[in-house]
């Protein structure tokens, strides 16, 4: 792989998808782009970077191959426990009058994250009877969105992170695969969205899950995406980041929510949260109704 071709690819990915590719990632380029190069009948990366200047379909394939990342149900647990035990109880209080929540799963890949959120919402149906909860899930890559919309998972995917109780409750077996139930699938609205492009048309959200994606962005792109996300987040909404991610040095719009490092709130929203908190739990929210 020539240095020149690698640099051209770096520049292309940064501009088109915000992906910041460092020199140590040459192995990743080789692993992910070799099939694309072969399929296009090209001989090496040098030819590929020339072709993607003019061939939009090929450029799209390169972006998809480089940006698709692994995911699994209830990945890292903590953010989902936080969603169930901290975020939802607070929002149930704060939005008691509107009874409407909008959640964005940004860079949702093959759908495990938004479906995990949908399963939690379903489990809390008793507390949230009469509520409208919209889950919008976006990704840059159409190939993963198709899989997400289909909701069909392999034997391995269906077992990773997903408790057996959830598997039998929310999935049906079809041949060797597991298909997510229609009632959960219908809760999630999948859309194609490049985070580098304007996403204001998605509207305003109460919760944004944006996990394990900012780590791939260059500092300028991180700043830009975080500040535009702050504009999409309700003043008393929540931003949930990945375990290795932080806003420090990139955005002053957010602050940690209590002692949970990956759950953040907007800086201006302290009073609403403090009023809602006070040992908030779904049990208390139920009792308050």
């Amino acid at each position, binding site marked *: 792989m020539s240095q020149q071709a690698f640099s051209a690819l770096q520049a292309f990915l940064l501009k088109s998808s915000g992906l910041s590719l460092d020199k140590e990632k040459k192995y990743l380029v080789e692993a992910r782009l070799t099939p694309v190069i072969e399929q296009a009948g090209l001989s090496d990366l040098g030819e590929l970077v020339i072709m993607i200047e003019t061939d939009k379909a090929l450029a799209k394939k390169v972006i998809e191959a480089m940006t698709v990342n692994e995911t699994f149900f209830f990945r890292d647990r903590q953010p989902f426990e936080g969603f169930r035990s901290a975020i939802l109880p607070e929002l149930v209080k704060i939005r008691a009058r509107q009874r409407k929540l909008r959640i964005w799963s940004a860079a949702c890949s093959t759908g495990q994250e938004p479906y995990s959120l949908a399963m939690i919402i379903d489990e809390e149906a008793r507390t949230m009877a009469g509520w409208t909860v919209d889950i919008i899930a976006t990704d840059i890559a159409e190939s993963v969105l198709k899989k997400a919309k289909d909701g069909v998972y392999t034997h391995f995917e269906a077992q990773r992170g997903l408790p057996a109780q959830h*598997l039998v409750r929310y999935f049906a077996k079809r041949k060797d695969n597991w298909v997510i139930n229609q009632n959960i699938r219908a809760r999630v609205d999948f859309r194609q969205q490049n985070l580098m492009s304007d996403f204001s048309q998605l509207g305003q959200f109460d919760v944004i899950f944006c996990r394990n994606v900012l780590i791939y962005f260059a500092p300028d792109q991180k700043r830009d995406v975080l500040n535009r996300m702050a504009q999409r987040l309700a003043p008393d909404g929540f931003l949930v980041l990945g375990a290795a991610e932080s806003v420090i040095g990139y955005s002053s719009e957010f602050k940690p929510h209590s002692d949970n490092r990956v759950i953040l709130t907007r800086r201006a929203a302290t009073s609403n949260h403090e009023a809602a908190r006070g040992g908030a739990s779904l049990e208390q929210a139920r009792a308050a109704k």
Partner: protein
Amino acid sequence: MKNVLVVDDSPMIRRIAKKILEELNFKTFEAEDGQKALAAVNETMPDAILLDWNMPVMDGLEFLISLRQLPNGGSPKVLFCTTESDVKHITKAMQAGADEYIMKPFNKQIVKSKFEEVGLC
């Protein structure tokens, strides 16, 4: 270090499971059917049991039902690990007192994820 009893009539599965569990910092011991597993838990009650379903002499479900009737038999986390991979079997296992369910073939990620689910990883 937590103890896991691996119950499976296939020596190959026992070997693979043992390797994965040891990589996850568990101590393992083995039994090749339900009856030998009952004898083993009477000696030492493990923290968890990785349990095959179809075995000669006594199958996994019969073993689980007998285990849960023993004094302290409620304490080990029981994770089925079987080729039976339909909703009916999973439901039956959970109703009989299993804590988790692994469908074969499995890999380290699945085993780790399921042991995390029962709070042992």
